[in-house]
């Protein structure tokens, strides 16, 4: 039962914050992806950095259970799937998480996203054996690996560097990147279009 309460609290907060950072609004996603307004990219970079620093810092202090880490396998399909997700993300302006939250905020088009998503996931379930047979799901670069070896974790590493220190340094790197990233990389700086449409 505890896990269900945690699911409600953390899931609820996640949905709330995704809406507040603008991630449920396809206009804000589109402006990030066409490089005309990178605020959301800064938000994401900062979030990854903060999460990383707290997690690895907490692990080093013995406050965070290393066993909670869950690293996914690397295989060629990760990149191909990433390309597909990216294309659909740009077209719809939703990714799986933000699409679901956007439906909660009253966006009717998000319901069509969820319907398309359910069909897409079902199509993958049916076609999975062909992908499996193609070898594109076979592990590359060591499979479930992190950049450095994280003490106490069950995952291998791609380098011999200490994974917790590396995680901390990379986390700080993400934070620096969030600050360094310009407000926009394309379009007219200072144009009227920079004002939010809402």
């Amino acid at each position, binding site marked *: 039962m505890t896990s269900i309460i945690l699911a409600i609290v953390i899931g609820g907060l996640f949905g709330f914050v995704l809406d507040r950072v603008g991630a449920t609004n396809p206009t804000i996603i589109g402006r990030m992806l066409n490089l005309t307004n990178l605020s959301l990219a800064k938000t994401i970079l*900062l979030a990854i950095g903060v999460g990383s620093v707290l997690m690895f810092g907490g692990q080093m202090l013995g406050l965070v259970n290393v066993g909670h880490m869950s690293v996914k396998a690397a295989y060629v399909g990760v990149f191909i799937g990433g390309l597909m997700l990216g294309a659909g993300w740009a077209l719809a302006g939703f990714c799986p998480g933000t699409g679901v939250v956007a439906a909660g905020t009253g966006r009717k088009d998000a319901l069509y996203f969820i319907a398309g998503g359910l069909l897409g996931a079902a199509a993958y379930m049916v076609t999975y054996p062909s992908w499996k047979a193609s070898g594109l799901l076979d592990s590359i670069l060591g499979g479930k690996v992190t950049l450095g070896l994280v003490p106490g974790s069950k995952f291998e590493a791609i380098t011999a560097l200490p994974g917790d220190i590396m995680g901390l340094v990379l986390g700080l790197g993400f934070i620096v990147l969030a600050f360094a990233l310009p407000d926009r990389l394309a379009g007219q700086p200072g144009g009227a279009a920079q004002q939010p449409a*809402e």
Partner: protein
Amino acid sequence: MTLNWKIGGLMLGLVFFAAVLLVKPIGVSTQFVILDGIAADLVSPDLVTQTDEGYTSSNAYLAKSGGKYAKSVANPLNYSLVFVIAMVLGGFVSVKMRGGLDKAERAMPALWRANFGDSVAKRNIAVFVGGFIVLYGARLAGGCTSGHMMSGMMQTSISGYLFTAGAFAAAVPVAMMLYKKEA
């Protein structure tokens, strides 16, 4: 009202940290498969079956990794599915607290309207197709923006970097092609 990126990024980072501190890293796209499985199992109850060791399925994808997806289909009241349902409620509470969306925005986002006009059917077809590609790709990749990009890179996972490279390599050119007019 969108939060300033410094406050928003900090809050989002704290949520990702809270998840890994208390339970496990955040992920969403698997639940589309679980929902499909629950629906399909209602129509044909033989889809997911119990075994001595746990659960399995006549669908190879649900049966993979020792039947962990089959198990979730058989037990819908689990952490990951409730998490996603709670996300919807979180979004609902947030939008109510900021005064709700206007009618035009509920139908389609401003950037889409500026570039493609206000046909609701056109928008909904595009989003449906987009949803199909996004979830097909996410399942092929084994995760989405939450699980691979954010949770993955936060844990210095190689697969997170691989996924993110793919996602932006496609998303940026497609968005630049589609959204030439700013809104």
